[in-house]
């Protein structure tokens, strides 16, 4: 059984941004492997690589505000034997640097790790330009690229270590805001292996990223109403864990996908592709419904764009009604 934080569902659960887990993880990798290099495009502190820069200045590459060049330099470094971590906001990288990611990195199988911070509407007041809602879609479509969306800071550190030890291109999706820490140091983590956070039999939430916490809150509330909700943390979008997804669908017969991303092309779409081919069941998709974000406080935006607990409960009730037909 997976060991999770016992404070899940309580007001005083620890909160930390996933980007902090990355910052810790990349320092550990730097100690472990002297070929690890970190690049940034004028976003050292907000992407949490300041500590790495301080400890390994000769392996820290400040590129200035030039994300396309940064991706190319990272590929060149990797082709010459380095393990490159490219740290920026996801709207800029892989947003602006997608062509370079496609050819210089993925096609060439260069050992580059792309770190996309500040994803989702929960970026908040900076507004739509800085809220990446398309990054999963544009990365998971690329051959040779592993795509990872950790659910909290502890998992972000584990995922950083895992992709750092993996030979080949990877994308790690991170967030700005402090969010509940659902997992613990003891929670085992394996790339490509989805985690069952909660058992259930009526419906399964298959979610990715910190917003999954809202799914757990919805499950806890529905339990009081006699509805048994399974919760799966689908942290690796590619390669996706088809086995766990199919088994969950077979067990529950209805699925709600959950992500802080456009529902078109994102993590939910990846789940639907698996289900459509293997075990079709009714699905409701919770996420951003073909809109750009806007300015506001993170929690206000999560509510407005339909990823809060109540909206998830509605989606569950809807999918259950379809299941009954």
């Amino acid at each position: 059984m997976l060991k999770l934080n016992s404070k899940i569902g309580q007001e005083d659960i620890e909160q930390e941004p996933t980007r902090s887990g990355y910052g810790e993880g990349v320092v550990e990798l730097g100690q472990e492997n002297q070929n690890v290099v970190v690049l940034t495009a004028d976003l050292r502190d907000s992407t949490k690589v300041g500590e790495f820069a301080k400890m390994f200045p000769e392996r820290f590459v400040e590129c200035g505000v030039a994300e396309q060049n940064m991706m190319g330099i990272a590929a060149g470094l990797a082709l010459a034997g380095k393990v490159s971590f490219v740290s920026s906001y996801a709207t800029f990288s892989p947003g602006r640097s997608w062509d370079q990611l496609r050819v210089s990195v993925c096609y060439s199988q260069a050992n580059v790790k792309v770190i996309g911070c500040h994803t989702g509407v929960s970026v908040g007041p900076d507004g739509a330009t800085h809220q990446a809602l398309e990054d999963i879609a544009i990365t998971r479509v690329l051959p040779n690229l592993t795509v990872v969306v950790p659910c909290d800071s502890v998992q972000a550190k584990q995922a950083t270590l895992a992709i750092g030890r993996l030979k080949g291109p990877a994308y790690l999706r991170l967030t700005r805001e402090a969010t509940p820490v659902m997992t613990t140091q003891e929670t085992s983590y394996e790339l490509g292996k989805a985690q069952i956070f909660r058992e259930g039999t009526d419906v399964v939430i298959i979610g990715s990223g910190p917003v999954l916490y809202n799914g757990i809150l919805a499950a806890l509330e529905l339990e009081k109403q006699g509805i048994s909700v399974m919760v799966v943390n689908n942290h690796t979008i590619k390669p996706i864990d088809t086995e766990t997804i199919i088994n969950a669908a077979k067990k529950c017969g209805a699925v709600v996908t959950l992500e802080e991303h456009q529902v078109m092309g994102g993590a939910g779409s990846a789940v639907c592709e698996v289900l459509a081919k293997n075990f079709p069941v009714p699905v409701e998709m919770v996420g951003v419904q073909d809109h750009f974000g806007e300015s506001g406080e993170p929690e206000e935006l999560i509510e407005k764009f339909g990823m809060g607990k109540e909206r998830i409960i509605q989606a569950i009730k809807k999918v259950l009604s379809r299941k009954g037909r």
Partner: protein
Amino acid sequence: MNPFNLSVSELALKANNIRQDIIQMLLEAKSGHSAGPLGMADIFSALYFSVLQHEPSDPTWSGRDRLVLSCGHICPVLYASLAEAGYFPKDELQTLRKLGTRLHGHPHNLALPGLETSSGPLAQGTSQAVGMALALSMNHARQRVYLVMSDGEQDEGQTWEAVMFAGSRKLHNITAIIDRNNIQIDGYTEDIMPLEDLVAKYKAFNWHVLEIDGHNMQAIIDACNEAKTIFERPTVIIAHTIPGRGVDFMEGDYKWHGGAVGTGVPNKEQATEALHELRTLRGQIRGEHE
């Protein structure tokens, strides 16, 4: 040390062989680019058979210099040079652009020995060359990175991001060569998007700038040697070349750049004429089948 170390006159003959390979490849492939590869044959001959430290029997030898072709569309000249140097059998040149080939329409690093990068989208090679130079300098390695760019790709913003970075880091282990042939797909560079004053632009980005006749073997070799003596800046060699060089009816005409499938490559008669011209050194000697 270059494993061939050919003399200037031998390099000229090798360039002629490379040009013949290019014509035969393009005739067989029926699509691709003619002018750029022919125009760069002298420079590629000089690089592979005199300038570069490399070992064709050991393509990933750690002591090799890196040749990064950023303008991937002129790959027939790279493929022909690699085959002439023994990286793979020359027969394979005839598979260019065909199903199952290792010689893709634009180079793929994992497909063929001797290719350092994948290229096609312009300017990406420049950033990758900078990354390789940075890695070599982090490792205190003495190998150099030779970067080949087209003039048309100077239109790309990424080119200047990379040029700015290399100049700021004083990456003196980069020798860049710009194929200044003044053509791009839609016309002459100075009509499409004027690049001049290119020398002043590179100087402003802290590069050491040389200008040469890109068909003068001694000048190519001298410029590459001079680049090795510069320690505070990366070097760019602006090589003035004639697109389509060696084939009279192609020289200087942007229509032979190539781009759309089936345009800009020779048909059977044109290829025969081009090969005759190359084999007879423009009528100076008799062809072997005459």
